């Protein structure tokens, strides 16, 4: 092997490691939904090639209101699906579309685009008033 080949190989290995680290392991900080008491816990999620925040923490047993603000018109994100709650909604571009449901049990629920490529997670924790 020439020094150049060795360099390219090492660079390639480094690139693969970086790609997998960046897409799978790099931290995505969860955002806690706002709203106390018994009303809905709401959080604004910006849809722009992805969901930000993409991880939302809520309290189980209380209604959750995800306000999707779609800032693009790419066809990919035109629908949002929350499969565990049977929700498939069209998100008009440049608007805020609320989606409301109640995770009765603690757990992790996904929300994705219509094709399941763009995804986010809703982490429902056992709340003070909710079931343990």
């Amino acid at each position: 092997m020439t020094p150049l080949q060795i360099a390219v190989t090492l660079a390639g290995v480094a690139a693969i490691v970086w790609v997998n680290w960046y897409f799978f392991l790099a931290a995505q900080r969860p955002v806690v939904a706002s709203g106390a008491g018994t009303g809905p816990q709401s959080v604004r999620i910006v849809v722009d090639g992805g969901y930000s925040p993409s991880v939302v923490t809520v309290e189980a047993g209380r209604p959750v209101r995800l306000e999707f603000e779609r800032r693009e018109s790419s066809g990919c994100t035109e629908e949002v699906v929350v499969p565990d709650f049977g929700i498939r909604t069209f998100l008009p571009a440049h608007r805020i579309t609320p989606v409301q449901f109640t995770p009765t049990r603690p757990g992790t629920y996904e929300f994705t685009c219509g094709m399941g490529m763009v995804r986010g997670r809703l982490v429902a924790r056992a709340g003070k008033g909710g079931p343990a």
Partner: protein
Amino acid sequence: MDTAATSRDQCTIPVSGMTCAACSARIQRTLERHAGVSGANVNLMTGAATVTYDPTATTPGDLVSAIRATGYGAELPRPEQSAESLVALQDAARAEEIGELKWKLAVSLAAGVLAAVVSAPLMVATEHEQDPLTAFMMPLTVLVRHLAPWAYELSPLVLRLILLGLTVPVVGWAGRQFYTRAWTAFRHHSADMNTLIAVGTGAAFLYSLVATLAGGWLRARGVEPHVYYESVLWIIALVLLGNLLEARAKGRTSGAIRRLIGLRPATARVVRDGGEIEVPLAALRVGDEAVVRPGETIPADGVILDGASWVDESMLTGEPLPVRKEPGHRVVGATLNRNGAFRYRIDRLGADSTLSRIIGLVQQAQGARAPIQRLADRISAVFVPVVLSIAIATFVLWFDLGPEPASLNALVAAVTVLIIACPCAMGLAVPTAVMVSTGRSAELGILIRGGEALERSEGLQTVVFDKTGTITAGRPVVQQVLTREVPSAELLRLAASVEQLSGHPLGEAVLAEAERQGLELDTASELEVRTGRGVLGLVAGHRVAVGNRAFMDEIGVDGSPLSDEADRLAVEGQTPLLVALDGALAGLVTVADPVKVESAEAVARLHGMHIETVLLTGDGSATAAAVGRAVGVGRVVADVLPEGKLAEIRRIQQEGRVVAMVGDGLNDAPALAQADVGIAMGTGTDVAMEAGAITLMRGDPRGVAEAILLARRTMRVIRQNLFWAFVYNVIGIPVAAGALYPAFGLRLTPTMAAAAMAISSVTVVSNSLRLRRLGGRAVAHSERTAHV
């Protein structure tokens, strides 16, 4: 392309309490001054405010509060309107996307063709590519040499600059979306199809740019300054073509919902202040009286007050024959009034209406995720980063081990891997099929609650029918009148007269028959009802008793003269009612719940599909066995109490069989829930729609086989889609990486990869769209039961 964020919405708000033009003007002024409102129109006659507003500045809820603050009543726009406007928005967005894609595609294609012409002389200059595409392009090279010999006089540098000039607008405008979307996704630590296209074409473009502007620098380092502008152009053109076809096809997958929503008329003719006026549907209120003329669509659910007609309910039930409607009958919004006119009272609007519930169920079904999708989900979540990794590895392997020019081959192979990988096919495989299938079946009057119901229905082994209302009509009807001396009409008249107040279903059958024959009933006095046995009373001076054999014994009437007849008829599934006149047996009337004419065929079809059938009933064994024989059902379980139905389903499940329960969804809800697939079946639009995993809107038991068939076909299409999507990627990616090169010298060009990718996702969507042609055979030759 993202348009400016000034968006406008419109909503119609029903307003009540307006009495004069001053009221409407006042509300209109209030609305017009409200922040975010760009226009308002309040109509006194229709009682509705139509408001145009900026959805980022205000909401319909704010507008309603503003109207209420002026002292008038207002309600939020009903959900079906938002469903309608959402569909309209979605259509508009899709139309815009398609229009834009067409332009971009046209420009990219034109640039691609020009680039092919300009590249021809360059290809001769650098004849190291011997792939199939180059061979395919050779005739073009000859043609260009013939038609445009001047092109060959130009220096390679000039040719490359022309190609660069063609590529820049395509990359910067037509293909811009790939790069911007890839970048926004990247910022979110996520990657999608755009990432692959952007990295692939970006690498090819940047390399070509260096080769064009600093060819000498590359050559000095032993790398041929080859350019790949043409590939970049064709990849972008082909991916845009794929996106265009996909956008069109995706628009069709939700066509069924659109058709359902489109069924609703725009206006209704209501009676207000003694006159008839047209009002927009949004301004209707519960309690309004509306008038429907022949050929008009019924605007909302309600009950007929006067007039009569035949109504075509096929759009909701799949039932092809019009249904007779008279005062007291229910009519359903969105169905079509055929030939009569009637006035009716609206009693359900908005989310409660039948159409809204159907639309809601279908939308919910389309949003629910099928279990079979889990694998596809898991793969698509890691797909793009894995493909990026494979592309990098491909580059390294070609660079280290491949033939010269190693760096060029490595670049081409890596780009080809990125371009051929198609996560879209996998993402579209299940949802498109579920959407098309649930939408299509809704049109056939079969509501399926999503992917899971489809999956379970496919594997059904046993179908349990509740007898009453599913296999039989659910309404007992008089079958025979046997009499000894009194004329049969007189016997029926007397029996009906005492049964007038009994309220028993069998008694009601006697009453209905007397009414059908136009018999005048007498009032009965000294009425005595012995629950479950019979009834006794004084009619026109005669003591009349109607009941079973035990009842006759009880009141000292000898039932033996007709006992043979009674036993024989009981075996045939009829229930004999003995009639005594002044203490002596006068005759008997038999009543039975008639078997639907479709039932035998429904059972036979299931047997033909290798599905076992069971009849479950609370009736006595003689009646149950008679019905079982009539329809050819495999096994009969009689004398079952309501709780027993649930236990029977459990018992069959414990045998390891996958069971469907078919019932009316009202009194057998627990059994429907216990079954692997609960099938709720009603008559006409009168169904407990939310009770089962599947709802048959039409009271035709053949719908059970139809639904299972539909599920089987859908699952087959889903499997084909998944298989195709997996196999495509599993074969395509290694071939693109050059897996066949060492043995066969075969490799793909990036352009071929782009064509393959575009075809693969379009194939999946088109395959799903085949489900639009599903079913409807039973619909074609349906007949109603004999006794309706």
